[in-house]
């Protein structure tokens, strides 16, 4: 069930921009902060199903593109962190000599005040830095900060497995490290890795949204969930323009789906 929902989310994230009726950056200056319109038949070009934002951009079109961008950025932040964690965790379990090194490296990375470093990175980049550069900074810093905990858990689980009888039997039958990894460790570790994947993606999306709200994420006018929620920082807009909360309709279910049934 949960796996199907995740696949559905990923498909929706891929297909959403194709369904956008208007460009995400087209400004309709005649309809700034217009409320959603569902009435019959105004000219097609000016219909705003979910209203418009403070620049008169169509919220529905922006939401569709934002769902795709934010989901992809979340995945892009979480996947390298997970890959590094799996690599280091399994490596440390199979080659115990490597284990203290992994521990030290992890502790150094974990005590890095990553958001302050991110702020410093943002200061170092020019004011009109490209979205790619900022996304790269987000990916690198998130990976650096997030891999250790996952790696240590995976290492502990792999070590636990390595002491079981079926591994011993495989070793006595002459199995090499590669065979152990592929046929015995990986199938048993897959649920744990999947759980960490979900947790890391949720953490990445959550961090990304919060950072965009303070202006540290992908630059405007690119629509992301955080960028779309940013106008709500203005008290008048937040209390009057309820349609600007639309990104929550996508964001909250996705985060709930990812952290659903995951035991903390």
């Amino acid at each position, binding site marked *: 069930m949960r796996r199907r929902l995740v696949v559905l989310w990923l498909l929706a994230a891929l297909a959403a921009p194709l369904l956008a009726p208007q460009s995400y950056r087209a400004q309709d200056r005649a309809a700034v902060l217009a409320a959603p319109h569902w009435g019959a038949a105004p000219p097609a070009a000016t219909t705003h199903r979910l209203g418009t934002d403070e620049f008169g951009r169509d919220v529905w079109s922006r939401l569709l593109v934002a769902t795709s961008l934010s989901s992809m950025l979340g995945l892009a932040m979480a996947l390298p962190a997970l890959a590094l964690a799996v690599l280091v965790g399994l490596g440390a379990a199979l080659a*115990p000599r490597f284990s203290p090194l992994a521990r*030290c490296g992890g*502790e*150094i990375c974990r*005590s*890095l*005040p*990553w*958001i*302050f*470093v991110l*702020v*410093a*990175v*943002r*200061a*170092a*980049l*020019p004011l009109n830095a490209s979205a790619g550069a900022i996304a790269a900074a987000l990916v690198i810093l998130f990976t650096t900060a997030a891999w250790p905990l996952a790696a240590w858990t995976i290492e502990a689980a792999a070590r636990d497995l390595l002491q079981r009888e079926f591994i011993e039997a495989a070793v006595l039958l002459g199995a090499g490290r590669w065979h152990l990894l592929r046929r015995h460790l990986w199938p048993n570790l897959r649920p744990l890795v999947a759980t960490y994947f979900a947790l890391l993606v*949720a953490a990445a*999306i*959550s*961090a990304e*949204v*919060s*950072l*965009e*709200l*303070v*202006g*540290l994420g992908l630059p405007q006018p690119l629509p992301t969930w*955080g960028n779309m*929620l940013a106008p*709500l*920082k203005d*008290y008048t807009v*937040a*209390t009057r323009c309820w349609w600007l909360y639309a990104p*929550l309709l996508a*964001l*909250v279910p996705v*985060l*709930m789906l990812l*952290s*659903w049934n995951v*035991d*903390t």
Partner: protein
Amino acid sequence: MGGAGQGAWNRGWRRGVLALASVLGSVLVCFALAQFAPGDAFTALELDPALAPAAVARLRAEYVPGSGVVHRFAAWAWAAVHGDLGYSLQSHRPVLSLLRDRAGASAELMVLGLVLAWGCGGLLALAPAWLGERSHARFERILETGLHALGSIVAALPLGVLAIAALVAAPAQWLPSPDGGSIALPALVLGLAFLPTVYFQTSHALSSVRAKGFMMQGRAHGLAPWRLLLVHALPNAADVLVPVASLSVSQALVELVVLETLLGWPGLGQLSITAAQNRDLPVLAALVLLTSLVVIGCNWGSEWVQMRCNPQLRTAAAPPRRAEVEA
């Protein structure tokens, strides 16, 4: 005993080296970035028609010592060791006094928020356990399911969204104002953000302790439910909860940046964002230094408390080597 003492000494030594490496590493990253970044704090001054290019060049020569990143870093580290963190390029004040002014506000917010989270989260986790000890097992289950569902919803919301929701819902006198505003709003949001983690971790730790033999024995002896929970279960759960508490401090440091910026609380987080906007490298370097010191201090503190609580850790912390086991 001598072996254990030697082990502790080695561990302490290793931790010290690690801590130094991570502090220096973080600050060095900061410096390297500033070195390779196009422009600096004086780029904006070059556009000012009232200033001659020579004057800007003189300012730059005065405030940006040396050229190589290693040279700058070494000069900064040498001064920092002597208690001089440099001079803020933006507010024209020593960085140390700037930090001293702001750190109080951040510390106040963090302490209040975390006390709220741990107080309420602890009580919420104790309530179902207390009901269970009083043999209302069905109510325990209902309450626990409800709290779990609520907790997962709050945990799924990013901090920024929580802050905006709080801004909309708060009474007028709590809203941020130019002269600071009330601490109630940021503290509540911080507390709410940490509540689910605290609740889940405490209730998980309590339920695993409650399944142990000594708890059953206590029940058989007819100990009062509150005594069983507070005197017997909670101290045994502390072993798990202390690292979580220390982790929540370092996590809160990260959250402060977002929270203070959105809710207008004049602390270190807000300072970091304004420093970033003005490319005020001395302030940023000092902030990175300060936060990494706090994180490392928390890690050490939690380890020390754990060692005090659980004597087993003192001897078993170093895993036995293969040769020793086989011998």
